[in-house]
C-alpha cells in the first residue's frame, strides 16, 4: 500500500509541476448563446492555423464574466462570451482584481423568436402587447388595471387563436431573459396602457418598471432554466405551448417548430439585419488585453473570429444563424488596434 501511496503522491507532484508550464491554447468561457458560434470559430481556427484549437466552456454570461474578472494570469480565462454588454458593476469587479484593459468585440446579433408546435394553432399576429397581456402579472381590462386572469389568447386579441395560454420563457439566469423583459414585456406594458395606469396609480418610476416585468405566477407562464432543448421538449408535449428560442435554434428545428411573426414580420437573418424584426440583441466577447502576446494565438483568434471570411453575411456564422454586424469593418479595426473599453473612440 505504501508503495502505491508514494507513487500517487509522485504523480500529483509531477502534474502540479507541469501545470506551471506555459498554457498554449486559448481558453474561453461564458454565454451558452455565443457558445455555438465560438465553437464553430474554434474548430475552424484549429483546422486553419497552426495554433491549437481553443477550449470553449459553457456556463452563462454572468458566470463567464465572473471568471473573466478573477484576475490576470495563465490560470484565468482569456476571453469571456456574453449575450449582453458588460455591466458597470462587472467592470468595477474586474478592475479590483487587476483586469483593467478589456477589449469589447461585438460579433453580430441574435434574433429572439417565438415558436409553437408545428401541428398546433398558428400565431401570426403577435405584437409585444399580446405577450404582455398573456403573461404580465397585472394587465388592463376594460380600462382598469387588474390581476391577469386571461385564459386564452383570443380573449384580448380576436386575431389570435382561441388557444389556452402556455408560455415557456427563459429563466432569470439567462441573458435572453433580460432582452425578453426589455424588448417585449416593457414594450408591451407601455403599449397596453398598463404602464400609464400604474403611474397614474401613484407608483414611482422604478416600481413601475419592476411591476411591468412581473410575470403571472399561476402556471400560464413557465420559466425554463435549462437550454433551448428543454423548451423544445415542453413545446413538444403541449399543443398550445409557445416557447422563446434563439433564431439559430429555431432554424435548425423547423421540422418540429412553427415560428410566430412579430408585428407582422417573420424572423430571419435578413429581417433582423434590416431592423424590421423587433426582438434582437447584440452578442459580444471580451478579451483580456494583458494576455495578448502571452497566450499564443489569442489576438489571431479574435481577428479570425471577426474576419470577413467567417463573420460576414455569407460566412459560416451567418450560415448557422448569426445576424452579421453591419459595422464589422469597424470591429475588425478595433481588434487590430487592440482598442480597450473606455478608451477614446
Amino acid at each position, binding site marked *: *500500500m505504501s508503495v*502505491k*501511496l508514494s*507513487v*500517487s503522491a509522485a*504523480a500529483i507532484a*509531477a*502534474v*502540479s509541476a*507541469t*501545470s506551471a508550464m506555459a*498554457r498554449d*491554447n486559448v*481558453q474561453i*468561457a461564458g454565454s*451558452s448563446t455565443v*457558445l*455555438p458560434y*465560438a*465553437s*464553430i*470559430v*474554434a*474548430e*475552424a481556427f*484549429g*483546422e*486553419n492555423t497552426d495554433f*491549437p*484549437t481553443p*477550449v*470553449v*466552456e*459553457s*456556463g452563462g454570461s454572468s458566470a463567464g464574466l465572473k471568471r473573466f474578472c478573477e484576475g490576470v494570469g495563465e*490560470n484565468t*480565462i482569456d476571453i469571456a462570451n456574453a449575450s449582453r454588454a458588460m455591466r458597470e458593476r462587472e467592470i468595477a469587479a474586474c478592475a479590483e482584481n487587476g483586469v483593467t484593459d478589456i477589449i469589447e468585440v461585438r460579433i453580430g446579433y441574435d434574433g429572439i423568436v417565438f415558436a409553437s408546435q408545428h401541428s398546433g394553432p398558428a400565431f401570426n399576429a403577435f405584437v409585444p402587447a399580446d405577450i404582455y397581456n398573456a403573461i404580465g402579472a397585472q394587465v388592463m381590462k376594460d380600462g382598469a388595471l387588474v390581476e391577469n386572469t386571461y385564459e386564452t389568447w383570443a380573449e384580448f386579441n380576436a386575431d389570435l387563436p382561441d388557444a389556452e395560454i402556455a408560455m415557456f420563457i427563459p429563466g432569470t439566469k439567462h441573458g435572453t431573459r433580460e432582452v425578453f423583459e426589455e424588448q417585449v414585456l416593457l414594450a408591451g406594458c407601455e403599449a397596453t396602457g398598463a404602464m400609464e395606469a400604474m403611474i397614474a396609480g401613484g407608483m414611482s418610476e422604478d416600481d413601475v418598471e419592476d411591476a411591468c416585468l412581473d410575470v403571472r405566477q399561476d402556471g400560464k407562464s413557465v420559466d425554463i432554466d*435549462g*437550454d*433551448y*432543448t428543454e423548451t423544445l421538449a415542453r413545446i413538444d408535449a403541449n399543443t398550445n405551448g409557445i416557447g422563446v428560442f434563439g433564431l*439559430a*435554434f429555431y*432554424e*435548425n*428545428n*423547423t*421540422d418540429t417548430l*412553427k415560428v410566430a411573426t412579430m408585428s407582422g414580420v417573420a424572423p*430571419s437573418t435578413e429581417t433582423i439585419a434590416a431592423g424590421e424584426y423587433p426582438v434582437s440583441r447584440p452578442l459580444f466577447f471580451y478579451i483580456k488585453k494583458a494576455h495578448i502576446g502571452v497566450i499564443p494565438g489569442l489576438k489571431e483568434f479574435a481577428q*479570425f473570429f471577426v*474576419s470577413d*471570411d*467567417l463573420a460576414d453575411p455569407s*460566412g*459560416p456564422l451567418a*450560415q*448557422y444563424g448569426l445576424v452579421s454586424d453591419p459595422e464589422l469593418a469597424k470591429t475588425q479595426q478595433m481588434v487590430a488596434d487592440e482598442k480597450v473599453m473606455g478608451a477614446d473612440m
Partner: protein
Amino acid sequence: MTDVSMESAAPRGTLTTVDARTKKRNAAEKRFRAYGLTAIVIGLFFLVVLAVSIIRSGLPAFTQTVVEVEFTLTQEQFDEAESQLLKTKAYENIFIAALQSQLEQRGLNVAFDAAAIERLLGKTGGTIREYFRANPDRIGTPVSFELAASSRVDGYFKGRVTRDSVVDSRFLMVTDLDLVDALYDAGIIKSAFNWNFITGADTGVDNPGGAGIGVAVIGSFFMMLVVLVLSLPIGVAASIYLEEFAPKNWFTDLIEVNISNLAAVPSIVFGILGLAVFIQFMHLPQSAPLVGGLVLTLMTLPTIIISTRASLKAVPPSIREAALGVGASKMQTVFHHVLPLAAPGILTGTIIGLAQALGETAPLLLIGMVGYIARAYPEGVVSGFIDPNSAMPAQIYTWAARADAGFYEKAWGGIIILLLFLLTMNLIAIILRRRFERRW
C-alpha cells in the same frame, strides 16, 4: 381401537388432506409469489423499453451518409487554398467544383447547381486539407474521398428528415432531395459505418457529421486512472485501520456515521467542493481530467470504504485468531491473511465504485467540462491529465443540448458506448467475485 385414537389425534386433518387454514396459508404464499413475479416483470418491462429506446435512437449514430468522390488537387489549387485565411472553405469549394463537373459529365437528369451541392455536403474542408498536408506527394494524382454528407441529408436516409419536414428549412430545399435520390442511385451517396464516431473528437455545432466520442473516452480513462490510483489505496487503508486497529470510541463512531452520510451526498455537492478547493484555492487547471478525477475520488471513497469494511468483516475471526496464535503480529495477520481473503470483495466494490464514477455528470458540469472541450487527443500522458478534456457523460450532455438533431442522435449513440463500458466493468466485477470469493 387404533382407528379411534388416530382420528382423535388428527382433528385438523392429515398431511395428505388439506384443511381450510392450510389452504389459506398456501394461498397467501401463492399470492406473495405472484406479487414478486409481477414486480420482476414490471422491472423487466421498463428495462426492455429503456434498452429498445436507447438502441433505436442511438444506432443511427453508428452509420453516416457519405459522398464518395474521386478528384485531383493540382499544385496551383493547393497553393491558392493555402494562401487564404479560411483554407478549409477554399478546399470545400474545389471539391464542390470537382463534384459538379463530374455530375455534369454523367448527365444526371436532375437540375442542380453549386449551391445545391454545397447544401448536400457536411463540413469537408478540414478532412481534405489534413489529408493533403500529410500526403503532399498525392497532390496532382486522383484521390478518392469519402466525405460526410450534411446533417439533413444524413437524416433523410435515417428517416429523421422527410420531404414534408424540410419545407420550412433554409438548410435544404425539397428539390435537393431529388438530387440526393439521383446521387444515391448513381452510387455516389451511400451509407457507411461511422468509425469516426468512435474514434473522433468533438466538433463545432455546424458539423455533426464529424463529431466523435473518442477524445471524451480518453478523458474518462484518465479520470478513472486518477480515481483508481487515489481512492483504492486511501479507501483500503482507511477501512483496514477502522476495522482492524481503531479503538471503538465516540470518535471512530463519528467517523463511521460520516462515511455513511458521505455516500448519500448528492454528487453535485462534490462538484461544488471541487471547484472551490481544487480550482479556486489550489489553482489546478480548469476542465482537466486530473481535477475531474480528484472530485470523483471524493465521491467514490465512501463506496469503496463501505464495501471494503464489509468484506473485511466477512473474514471469519478464527483466521485472525489462528494467525495471532502462531505468533504473527497484528499487521502480519492483516496483510498476510485477512487482506488476501477480502481482496475479491474489495475489488468488486472498487469496480462498482469506478463504474458509478464513470457515469457521473453533475460534478463535471461545475469544473468546466461542458462546452466545446474534447477537441483534440492529448499529446502524452501528462497532457492527458492536465489538458482540457471532457468525459463521456459530459460529452453526451453537451450534445443533447445542441440545436442540430444530428447531435441528438450522437448523444444517444454516446449513451450506448457509455453503457457498454459500464456493462463490461460490472461483468468483470461479477467474474472476479465468482472466481475468487470463498465462503465459510
